[in-house]
């Protein structure tokens, strides 16, 4: 799934709880609005918008794809980390952490440039350098986008282990497990 940083619900002007029929109606209305046939004076713009609308419809009209997409929106990438404090005798650790933070920042930047593959590498490097939950969590988010759900599950479990107090991690984990069960069911 090539996911651009566009919200498909916003693009089709519908609520996330929209029914299949509402999605279909919204798709057709959006086509009327954006299609190159109806916008002869700005073909490039119309082409791009229509391509996005078509992609949005493709994802949202397929119940399973839509669930994965909803999950991706829910399990948003962490752009910052919580505060980590280091004592006087942990200078070595602090240095490692700072190095890891550098990788983390680069990862976020790459993600925003839509280069998911390189971003994943950076988050893995960050986690390898210093075990902090945001790095492995972000790796998990990218695994979800690239459809590697088992790897994502492992990453979120690790994030939860590192930061058991974090409510978001437990919710993400819970929803992912539910999603995987549904996918299994659909496959059968």
């Amino acid at each position, binding site marked *: 799934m090539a996911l651009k940083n566009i919200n498909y619900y916003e693009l089709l002007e519908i609520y996330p709880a929209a029914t299949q029929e509402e999605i279909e109606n919204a798709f*057709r209305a959006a*086509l009327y609005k954006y299609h*190159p*046939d109806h916008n*002869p004076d700005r073909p490039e713009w119309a*082409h791009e918008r229509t391509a996005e609308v078509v992609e949005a419809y493709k994802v949202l009209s397929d119940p399973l794809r839509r669930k994965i997409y909803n999950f991706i929106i829910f399990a948003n990438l962490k752009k910052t980390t919580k505060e980590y404090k280091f004592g006087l005798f942990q200078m070595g650790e602090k240095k490692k952490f700072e190095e890891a933070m550098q990788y983390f920042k680069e990862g976020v930047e790459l993600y925003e440039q839509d280069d998911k593959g390189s971003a994943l590498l950076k988050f893995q490097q960050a986690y390898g350098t210093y075990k902090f939950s945001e790095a492995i969590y972000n790796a998990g988010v990218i695994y979800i986008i690239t459809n590697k759900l088992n790897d994502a599950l492992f990453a979120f479990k690790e994030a939860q282990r590192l930061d058991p107090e974090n409510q978001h991690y437990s919710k993400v984990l819970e929803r992912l497990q539910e999603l995987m069960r549904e996918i299994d069911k659909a496959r059968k």
Partner: protein
Amino acid sequence: MPKIIGIDLGTTNSCMGIIEDERLIIIPNDEGFRTTPSVVALTKEGALLVGNAAKRQQIMNPENTVFSIKRFMGRKFTDKVVENDLKLMPYKIIPAPNGDVRIVLAGKVYSPPEISALILMKLKKDAERYLNEPVEKAVITVPAYFNDSQRQATKDAGKIAGLDVVRIINEPTAAALASGFDSKSKMKIVIYDLGGGTFDVSILKLGQGIFEVMSTSGDTHLGGDDFDQRIIDYLIEEFYKKEGIDLKGDRVALQRLKDAAEKAKINLSTLEAVEITLQFIAVTKEGPKHLQTVLTRETLEELTKDIAESTAIPCEIALRDAGLKASDIDEVVLVGGQTKMPLVRSIVSRIFKKTPYEGVNPDEAVAAGAAHQASVLKGDIRDILLLDVTAFSLGIKTEGGVFSKIIEKNSSIPTRRSEVYTTTKDNQSFVRIEVYQGEKPMAADNKMIGTFDLVGIPPAKKGVPKIEVMFDIDANGIIKVSAKDLMTGKEQAIQITPDSGLSKSEVDRMTRDIGTEFAEKLAKGEKLKAQQDYKQVEQPAGEKDVGLPGQIAGEQKKKKSIFDIFKKKEG
């Protein structure tokens, strides 16, 4: 607002239409016929003939009469399908320097788009005469199963003919537009389009004014011509058995056989048997030999059953790709002359478990649909919209020659996908991307579209440059590749080397030259045609030797359509 006409540029016949005052008009040619044979000829006198006039003299001038040019549009000389056709075509075909197909006419070499352009120029001229104003824009239809090269070639043909091709649309989709179904109500329809040279099947979902193609499949090299060929082979064999003479090497005889075969086939759609008589088909020491035989519908069906049956596979693929069963289909629409054959109709009924819909004219539906689309683009029709799909997967060659898909077949178009590429060596200044269309796992087994070199990449360590490459398929089904440097956000320079087709300068030169080159020849052609017409009136049974019913009906139809024009002009 200038007029936009819709053109069905067919393998054997072309047809054109326009919507005026919310009414569809099929534009007749200068002889009053509603379709025009896609035939181009250069006579010994150096006259250029296009359409009916070219077809009429085909038997006498087979080497310099080009038909079925559509089969060669955007094709390589070495394509297997071209190889087969080489043996069948009485005109000369040679390879171009880039491996494309070229046609030799009276010693001069022409590209398939140029030949098609001659047909388009005639259509354009006839439309201008009929509408009484210049026509510069057109919507042209192509088989859904045309790849990027074939679509580009069609667009080039339009340009050479002086037409701005505002949109290329797929034939089955066009037929759906013209089918007259209310797009407001929800239904699923199949368009089964078996034309002279190509077979397409598309499944569409209608609703809320949108004609959404769900899947498409087909074969660009299967059509009425193949049915004709079976009859020709049969006649040759029968003649050989009886007389011991092989007609295969005789171009004039072959052309007469083709003509007779096509007529017999058409007549067998309504009759149970026809007599085929070709006098003086061969000359021996003992004197001239005549071919005389009776062909029954049963024999014809035996001869062609496997061809008709072979259309079932694309139908099943289309159903599967749309995620539907035959019982989900509400209507099946037949398009293309070959669907008039009872055998084809019964096979279609069997595949989709439904009697085909009778509401469309198989010869004119595609042109009518193109006219509808032209009207949408002009802004006159606002309540219908076409959403087509790409019939092929688009991808690139990756390590080990593996084909990596970027856009899946049956994706709605317009569509865009982007991929990020980087360098594999330090200070690498360019990255090569080879683009292919097809479904095979190895790139080499698919159709190569072109090579895209990302050039002028600033020196950096390997893996550092990040170039986003956008693969676009526009509403015409034509591919565009562009690139952006993600580090700088600037457009990345890209050198495009298409694997086939004409360069922009070639198209420009042909556009410039075609008018002057053929002006004189065309004038000669007009004169010749006038003589031809005169002869026809004088001797209405000019094609006596075939002597089949249907001829008279044709004459009547012709008269009627001429009458129609007068009526329209008066009104």
